[in-house]
């Protein structure tokens, strides 16, 4: 019983962490430009002088 309680809590905390990360990503605008993100990985930044 204790094991189960512990595991249930753990799963909720982990799931909640995932939710929090998603909400943070949404708030910081990471989903605003999905087309751009898909294209950007094709280009390297030139070396900084």
């Amino acid at each position, binding site marked *: *019983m204790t094991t*189960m*309680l512990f595991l*249930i809590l753990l*799963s*909720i905390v982990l*799931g*909640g962490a*995932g*939710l929090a990360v*998603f*909400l943070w990503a*949404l708030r910081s605008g990471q*989903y*605003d*430009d*999905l*087309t*751009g993100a*898909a*294209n*950007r990985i*094709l*280009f390297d*930044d*030139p070396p900084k002088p």
Partner: protein
Amino acid sequence: MTAAAAGAMSVGMSAVTQSLCAHCGQVAPGGARFCCPGCEAAFTTIQGMGLGRYYAERVLAPDARPPRPESNERWDLVRSIATDAKGRNELVVAVDGLQCGACVWLIEQALAREPGLVAGRVNMTTRRLRLVWDGATGQAERYVAAVERLGYRLIPYNAASLAASQDRTGRALIKALAVAGFAASNVMLSSVAVWAGLVQGMGPGTRGLMHWVSALIAMPAIAYAGQPFFRSAFAVLRRGRTNMDVPISIGVVLVTAVSLAETIRGGEHAYFDSAVSLLFFLLIGRVLDHVARGRARAAAEQLVTLRANDVAVLQADGSTQRLAAEAVAPGAMVLVAAGERIGVDGVVTAGNAPLDASLVTGESLPVAAGPGTSVFAGTVNLGAALTVRATATGAATLLAECVRLIEAAEARRGRFVVLADRVARRYAPTVHLAASLTFLWWWLAMAAPVSQALLTACAVLIITCPCALALAVPAVQVIATGRLFQQGILLKSATALERLAEVDTVVFDKTGTLTEPVLGLVDDGTLDRAALRIAAGLAAASRHPLSRSLVEAAGPVVALDDVREIPGQGLQAGALRLGSRAFAGDATAAAAAGPELWLARPGQPAVCFRFDERLRADAVETVARLKSMGLAIILASGDRPEAVGRIAATLGIVEWRAAQSPVEKVALVERLRAEGKRVLMVGDGLNDGPSLAAASVSASPATAADVSQTVADVIFQGNRLGPVAETLTVARRAKSVMGQNIVLSLAYNAIMLPLAVCGTITPWLAAAAMSSSSLLVMGNSFRLRRRA
């Protein structure tokens, strides 16, 4: 004749191999590396910055604007800059000419070399560039110039349209979706444990624990993620109406309450999983719907922004200042260059020029303007530069008058009740009645305990909760909107599809709708091709609308060197002249009705090029297709009867009206609607705005006046009329798929309802049935993706 001109002539006539400009990819004069000095400068700049990789990586889209620098636009940037308390400035501009990922890379790398810039980032989805910097606002000019030098056009957004596009609703919906998804998956985990326990033998204590865990996750999630539905249900109930959100809200709230009571009592069944996953499924539908429509709206807004133009206001000291049209004070002197669109209503004080007023009045032939003539915002100056004194702005302009007519027409139009709400009006009372009867039957007739009767009644509510029904319409809308979007058709309104499907009469405007928005060269078979190519070589240097038509008609040509533009008269290169009758023409020739250009060559008679309006390439075919779909076609134009009659005859349109004022057009549309017709109005002019608003549903080409584009439900891009027929076809198919979906979900309810009334529904059966019916409806909607 100069050697250059002679050489160009021989090239033009024999159509020697053509080379493409190394920068913009357009045709370059015989064998040259660049088409113009601007492109050469851009190429040098890019290579100088060490960004030459751009040319290897890019893919030029044929339908996008080529990256050719055209630096004759100056914007009043200051009005669009937002400065925060710390002195940090932000400017958002629309980027015209963005082709692919390489463009984004090029712009950002070029900006990274500008000092003082904190952030310069392109959003490829919305095609916007956001600039952030500290210090003086004047720096903006420099950053904008750095990007324009590369060949892109940057147009500032006005603050109002930018705020409107922030899209708070979309974000709130996605957050609700995330919370519902999190809760649904976790609640489902403990539910599956409970269901397995039914078989394997789970003790009541463990089951109770699982129910409590579900309750603690589900209840806050429902309170948060259910808000979009609760709010909408509350709003319509307060007005004494009902929609699909009412049964959803009642169902979810009741189910949660009963499940909570069961959990407290230590009962066997709790339905938290059903309640949460119901919200999750419905939110998926809402989010997709919102995203699809938001994309169409953003694209429509971009179209309007790209065409906005600033006004050159003459200052007391003789200099000019660029101002936004709405910032121009009455009495200010405004300079209008050749080929430019007039930005304000006013009176001409100096200069003589023909004006193209087709977007304002529907008149296809240019009208002459001279000192004292009243001109309206939206007309295009076809001749020499004009000076216009701005008259009263605001409520007195023609635009404001049209907006008033539009508002009046919209108020008379009446609200359209969407299919889903019409179903909900019958569905909600039926379901709630069935649940009450079930309760009474179990309690009174079967003498069951109150709690059991209540639980059975709730099972009825859960099983009839309109999950599939609520998805039936949005799922189709998302797919139809997406399909049309790919074809350049922007569906702005959520209810437009249903209204389009019912259309039985189409009213077309003529000028700019059935015909192309620019005047075309008249080719009656006697056209001198060689002369045309030479004329086009001269005209390639000019931005004048007639010059552009000439170049377009001639096909790829070699631009001549050393072309001088003589204001108000024409173009000259050596002894070659292209321009007005007085400048280059034969004064003795018979006067023509429409606009004309003359080409004068030494030793040869002058050649006249005449221009007239031209039907869209597929107009005949589209009108025939619409007729075969069983639609009545009416042509209503503000133009002269001869011009309208000729077009109507060509297209085989029997019913046509000419010389219609905006008020008469509205009256026509409203009379048709009073007869019970469902009218689709297709128009582009300012004068069509009110009738667009009065029609059941409306469409505009992307070249339409701003007001018309704002009012229209559908905007189609490109030079063809075919999208009108395509939209109607897709709408009709969408409507029939919506009907099938509703029948499917009602059939599912009809099968499950007796089981629920008998009390044989268990939570796992409810969850499985609900998910499968939703998936069925979504799957059916995807059939719309297939081409007919």
